[in-house]
C-alpha cells in the first residue's frame, strides 16, 4: 500500500470525487433552492401521490401492474414533507440510477465519457426544477436499471436458461414497474447485441419483451383501466400525462429512454472505435503511446486532470440545462405562498408576494392569498390596494369556474373562516372531483371540521379515520378522534364554537353564489363577524358600489375601529366628491396624507383627463397603490 505522504492526492484515484461533488451539489440545490416540501402544494397536489398506512391501501396497489413502484413512490413523496429527507431520497435515487448506468455502460470513472452517466440524474434534477414530482418515474426507472444490472451479472451462459431468466425478470418487472419493464427489455437486448454478442437474441428479446408485457396486461392483470399499466409510460395518452406540461413530458420521455440511449451510444462508440483501432498499424499505436507518456508524466496528474475535467464538463452541461428548464421564479414563489398559506404563516405569505414585481401578471390565487394574509395581519382595509387587485377578479370569495386546485383550497378555507360552511363543503367535493377523489389531507381535515361544526359527527369520524392513515397528518387526526370520544360535539373547542356562532342558519338556494348576498347574510347572522365585514367592504370597493360601502360604514363601531382604514378614507372621499354628500364619521377623521393624495389625484387627473395613457403614467408612480387609482383604472398595486 502506498504511503499517503508520497502521494498526498493519491486517494483521488479511488474516491469518486466527481460523483461526491456532483451529488452533494445536487442534494444541496434540491434541499435549499428547489425545496421538495413544495411538492405537496399547488398543482402538484392534483397529481400528488397519496399514501396511507395499512393493508387496504397496499392491497390496492399490489393488484395491478406498476402498483408496487407507485406505492413506493407515494411513500417517498410523503418524506418530502421534510425538506432534507425528501432531498436525500431523490438524491439517493438519482445516485442509484447513475451508478447503475455506469455499471451498465462499463465506463471507467477516470474517463471523460463517464460524464454521460450523470445525464439521467441531471434529467431528474430538471424535472424537480419544474416542480413536477419526479418520484413515480424515477423509482420505476431505478427498478428497471437494477434488474438490468442483475441480469448482466447473473445471467447464465446457457442460452435457453438466459432467455428463461429474461422472461421471468420481464414479467416480474412489468408487475413491479409497469411500462418501465420496456427499459429492461431494451437494455437486455443491447447487452445481447453488443456484449455476447448474439444479435439475433437481442432482437428476439425485443419481441418477447413486448409480448410478455402485453400478455400480462391483457391476460393476467386485466386492469380496470389501461391507465394503470401505462402509469410509468411517458409516451401514452393517459390522463396523468396529459395534465403535465410539454417540457416536463419531454424530460420524462428523455429519462425513460435515457439509459438505453446511453448504452446504445457508448456501445456503438466502442464498436466504432474498435473498428477504427483495428485499422491502425501497430507502429502508429506504439508512437502514440510514447508521446502520451512524455507529455503527461505519471498517472497521478492524469487522474486529477480527468476528474477536474469531468467536473467542469458537468457544470457546463448541468447549469444551463437546469436553468433552461427551471420554473424557479414564478412557480416557486407561488408554491411558497401556498406552503405558507396552508400553515397560516401570513407575514411570510406577504413577504413572498412582495418579492414578485408589482406589475407581474397575477392570477386569482395571488390575489386571494394576498387578501387573506392582509386580513389576518389586520392590514386589509389599509393596504389591500397597495397590492394587485383587478376588477375582472373582483369575485373575492366565489367563482370556482376559474383557477387551479390551489385556488379551490384557498377558497374552501376562506369560506370556512367566513362561516360559509356549506359552500366550503361544496368546494371540498369539487376539489375531490378534480383530484379523482384522492384523499388530500388538507381537504380531509377541512371536511372533518365542517361536519363537526354541522353536528354530523359520524361523518366527520369517517374522514378523520381516513386522515389517520396519512403518514404526516395522521397523528393530528387521531388526536381529534380521541377528543371526539370525550366531547362528541367539541363544545369546548374555540374554533368550532366560533364557526357555529357565525355559520349561516337561514337557507337560500343557488346555482352560482352571490357574494354580496352571502356576506350580508353572514353579518345578519352575527354582526361581529369581522372577516365577513371586511370582505364585504372589500367587495363593495372592488365592485365600486360606494353607496353600499357607505351604508355599511356604521358597522365600524361594532368592531371597535379607532380610525378609518386608509382605503375606506379614500373611498369616502371619492363618494363625497361624486355625491356631494358629507359622511358622518363621528370621532374618526380622514387623514391629512389621504386628503393630500386625493387633491394630488384630482389635480393630475384634471390635467390629463383626455389621455388615459398619459394619465396612467402620471399617476402610477405616486398613487398606483391607492384606491383612487383602482377606482379609476380597475387595477391597483402598480408603480409604472
Amino acid at each position, binding site marked *: 500500500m502506498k504511503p499517503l505522504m508520497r502521494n498526498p492526492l493519491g486517494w483521488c484515484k479511488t474516491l469518486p470525487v466527481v460523483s461526491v461533488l456532483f451529488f452533494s451539489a445536487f442534494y444541496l440545490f434540491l434541499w435549499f433552492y428547489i425545496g421538495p416540501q413544495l411538492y405537496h402544494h399547488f398543482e402538484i397536489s392534483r397529481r400528488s401521490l397519496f399514501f396511507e398506512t395499512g393493508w*387496504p391501501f397496499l392491497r390496492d396497489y399490489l393488484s395491478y401492474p406498476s402498483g408496487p413502484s407507485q406505492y413506493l413512490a407515494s411513500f417517498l413523496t410523503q418524506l418530502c414533507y421534510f425538506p432534507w429527507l425528501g432531498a436525500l431520497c431523490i438524491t439517493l435515487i438519482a445516485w442509484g440510477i447513475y451508478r447503475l448506468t455506469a455499471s451498465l455502460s462499463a465506463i471507467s470513472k477516470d474517463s471523460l465519457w463517464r460524464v454521460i452517466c450523470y445525464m439521467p440524474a441531471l434529467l431528474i434534477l430538471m424535472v424537480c426544477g419544474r416542480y413536477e414530482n419526479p418520484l413515480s418515474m424515477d423509482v420505476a426507472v431505478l427498478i428497471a436499471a437494477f434488474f438490468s444490472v442483475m441480469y448482466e451479472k447473473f445471467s447464465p451462459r446457457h442460452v435457453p436458461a438466459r432467455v428463461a431468466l429474461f422472461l421471468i425478470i420481464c414479467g416480474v418487472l412489468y408487475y413491479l414497474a409497469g411500462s418501465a419493464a420496456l427499459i429492461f427489455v431494451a437494455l437486455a437486448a443491447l447487452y445481447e447485441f453488443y456484449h455476447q454478442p448474439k444479435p439475433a437474441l437481442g432482437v428476439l428479446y425485443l419481441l418477447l419483451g413486448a409480448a410478455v408485457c402485453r400478455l400480462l396486461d391483457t391476460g393476467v392483470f*386485466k386492469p*380496470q*383501466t389501461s*391507465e394503470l399499466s401505462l402509469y410509468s409510460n411517458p409516451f401514452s395518452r393517459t390522463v396523468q400525462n396529459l395534465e403535465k406540461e410539454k417540457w416536463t413530458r419531454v424530460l420524462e420521455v428523455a429519462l425513460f429512454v435515457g439509459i438505453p440511449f446511453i448504452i446504445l451510444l457508448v456501445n456503438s462508440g466502442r464498436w466504432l472505435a474498435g473498428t477504427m483501432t483495428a485499422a491502425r498499424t501497430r507502429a502508429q499505436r506504439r508512437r502514440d503511446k510514447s508521446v502520451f507518456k512524455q507529455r503527461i508524466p505519471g498517472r497521478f496528474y492524469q487522474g486529477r486532470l480527468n476528474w477536474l475535467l469531468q467536473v467542469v464538463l458537468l457544470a457546463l452541461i448541468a447549469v444551463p440545462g437546469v436553468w433552461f428548464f427551471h420554473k424557479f421564479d414564478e412557480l416557486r414563489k407561488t408554491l411558497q405562498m401556498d406552503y405558507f398559506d396552508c400553515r397560516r404563516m401570513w407575514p411570510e405569505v406577504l413577504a413572498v408576494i412582495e418579492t414578485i414585481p408589482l406589475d407581474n401578471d397575477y392570477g386569482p390565487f395571488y390575489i386571494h392569498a394576498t387578501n387573506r394574509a392582509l386580513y389576518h395581519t389586520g392590514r386589509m382595509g389599509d393596504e389591500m390596494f397597495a397590492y394587485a387587485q383587478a376588477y375582472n377578479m373582483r369575485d373575492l370569495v366565489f367563482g*370556482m*369556474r376559474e383557477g387551479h386546485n390551489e385556488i379551490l383550497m384557498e377558497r374552501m378555507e376562506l369560506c370556512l373562516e367566513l362561516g*360559509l360552511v*356549506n*359552500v366550503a*363543503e*361544496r368546494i371540498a*367535493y*369539487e376539489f*375531490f*372531483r378534480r383530484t*379523482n*377523489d384522492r*384523499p388530500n389531507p388538507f381537504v380531509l381535515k377541512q371536511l372533518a371540521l365542517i*361536519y363537526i361544526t*354541522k353536528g*354530523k*359527527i*359520524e*361523518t366527520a*369520524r*369517517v*374522514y378523520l*379515520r*381516513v386522515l389517520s*392513515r396519512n403518514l404526516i397528518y395522521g397523528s393530528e387526526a387521531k388526536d381529534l378522534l380521541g377528543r371526539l370520544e370525550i366531547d362528541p360535539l367539541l363544545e369546548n373547542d374555540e374554533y368550532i364554537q366560533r364557526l357555529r356562532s357565525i*355559520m*349561516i*342558519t*337561514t*337557507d*337560500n*338556494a*343557488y*346555482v*352560482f*353564489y352571490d357574494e354580496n348576498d*352571502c356576506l350580508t*347574510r353572514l353579518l345578519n347572522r352575527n354582526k361581529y363577524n369581522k372577516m365577513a365585514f371586511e370582505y364585504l367592504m372589500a367587495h363593495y370597493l372592488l365592485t365600486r358600489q360606494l353607496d353600499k360601502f357607505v351604508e355599511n360604514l356604521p358597522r365600524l363601531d361594532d368592531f371597535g375601529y379607532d380610525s378609518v382604514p386608509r382605503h375606506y378614507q379614500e373611498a369616502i372621499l371619492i363618494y363625497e366628491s361624486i355625491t356631494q354628500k358629507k359622511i358622518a364619521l363621528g370621532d374618526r377623521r380622514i387623514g391629512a396624507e389621504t386628503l393630500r393624495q386625493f387633491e394630488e389625484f384630482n389635480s393630475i387627473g384634471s390635467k390629463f383627463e383626455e389621455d388615459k395613457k398619459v394619465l396612467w403614467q402620471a399617476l402610477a408612480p405616486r398613487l398606483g397603490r391607492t384606491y383612487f387609482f383602482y377606482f379609476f383604472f380597475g387595477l391597483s398595486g402598480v408603480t409604472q
Partner: protein
Amino acid sequence: MKKRYVCLLVFCLCALVIAASGFALHTKPAEPEDYTLVGRTAEIRPDYTGIVIPPNIAPLNFLVLEPGEKYLVKIHSTTGDGLTVAGRKGKIKIPAKKWKSLLNKNRGNELFFDIYVKAPDGRWSLYDAVTNVIAKEDIDAYVTYRFMTPSSYYHFKRIGVYQQNLENCDKSVVLINSSFYGYGCVNCHTFVNNSADKMLIGVRTVDYGDGTLLVNKGWVSKIGAKFGYASWHPSGRLAAYSINNVRQFYHLAKQEIHDVVDLDSSIVYYLVDSQTVKTAAALSDKDRLETYPAWTPDGKYLYFCSAPILWQDRNQVPPENYDKVKYDLRRISYDIQTDRWGEAETVLSADDTGLSIMLPRISPDGRFLLFCMCDYGCFPVYQPSSDLYLMNLQTGEYRELTEANSEYSESWHSWSSNSRWIAFSSKRLGGLFTKIHLSYVDENGKAYKPFVLPQKDPEFYDSLFKVYSIPELTTGPIEISNKVLSRAACSLHKIDVDIPITTATPAAGPVGMEPWRRIQ
C-alpha cells in the same frame, strides 16, 4: 455435508412454523370458564343486533366496541354446534362455512352472539347475548348498485355499477366509467323480474355520446337514447322510462348541500322488438312532471309519480316554488297485446299526505307497494325527511315503515324476487354516505330492523367516504364483463330512436346539452 444439514434444519424449522400456524388457526378457541356477567349487550359495529337475517347471507363480521385485550364470540342457535370466533382488537371475522351451515340448519330460529371480553387484568366478562332471528326465506344472492363519491353526483368522476354476492361478499365491477376515456356517468341499472339476464344500464359519456345499454342473455346493444328512471314490463318486451330535464343547485344553510329539481319530465316507453319509443298523453302532460315509472308484476298497470309544474320560467334554476313541488302517486292501465293505455288515476294524493310521493316499487307477489315520501321534490336521497312507506295494494291502506326508517334519508328501495326482503339506501350511518341496508318484510307487511350490507372487513365502512345507491336485488350474477359493456358504451353503432315530439321535455335521445355538466 454441512450445507445439507443447514438446509435440512431450515426446512424443518419452516415446516414447524407452518404447522404451528395451521394448528393455531384451526384450533377452536376455548370458551372461558370463569367470567363476570356484565348485564347488558356489548356495543358492536355495524349494528347487527335485533335483526332478521337471511339464511344465505354472508357472515356478519363486526367490531366489538368494548375496551379489552382479547375478544371471543360464541355464535349458536337451536340446532347444531355453534361456532366460536376469537378476535384481536375486537375484530370478529366469522368463518364462512361454519356460519353457512349454522344458519341453514336453523331457519326460523333465533341466533345468539355471546360476546366475551378479556380485560387487561386477565378477567373475562360476558355480555348479554345479542339475539337475532334467522328467516326461513333466502334473499336474492346478488345486489347490484352504483358506487361513487358524493362529489360524483355533479361531475362524472369515479362512478361505477358493481355487484356484490350477498352470500360471500365477493364484489365485481359491472361497468365503471374509467373504462371509457374521458369518463362519464353510468346509472339506472334495471332488471327484468330480478333476473340479471336482461337489464338496462344508462351511460353518459363525453366522447361517445349518451345511450342505454340493453343486455339480453349475453348480448349487448346500445340504444341511442338516455333512459332516465326505467322499469321493465314483466314480459321483458318493453321498458318504461322517464326523460328528465334535471338541474342541480345548492343550499347555503341546510344539512344537505345538494338539491335537485326536474324542470320538466315525462314518461315514455321503449318497445324492444320494434325498437321504437312511444308515450301516452297521461304520461307526458305538458303541465305536469311525470317520473319514476314502476310496473305491477302482472304488467297491467304502470305506477308513476306526477306533480304539477309550479313555475312560469322553465329555465330558471332553482325555479320558483321548487320547494312546494309535491308528487302524487298515480297509475294507468295498459294492455300489452293491443298497446293501449287506459285513464290515469290517482292512487295517493300529495294533498292528502302533505308530502311528495316518490319511487313506487311493487313487490313481485303484487301485494305491496313500497314507496318513499319526503317534504318536497323529486330526489329523495337529498331529503333527510325521506322515509319508507308500505301500501297494501288490496286494501289501499298505507303506513310508515317506522321499523326501517331513521332521521336521515331512506330511498332507492327494491324488492327481492320472493317479496320477503327489501334493499334500500339509507344515510342513517352519519347522515351523508348512503349505505345499502337490508330488511325483512313478512307476509303481513311488517318490516324488521334493517342491517347494513355485510362486508368481509368489519371496519370496511369506518373510513369509506363513498356512497351506494340504487341497490337492486337479483337472483344471479351479471355475467357480461365490464370490458364488453364499455366497448358497447364507446361504440358508435347504436339503435336510433326518435322521442315522440308531443312531449314537453327536451330531447334526451341524441347527444344534447347535458344538464349535469352545466353546473359550475
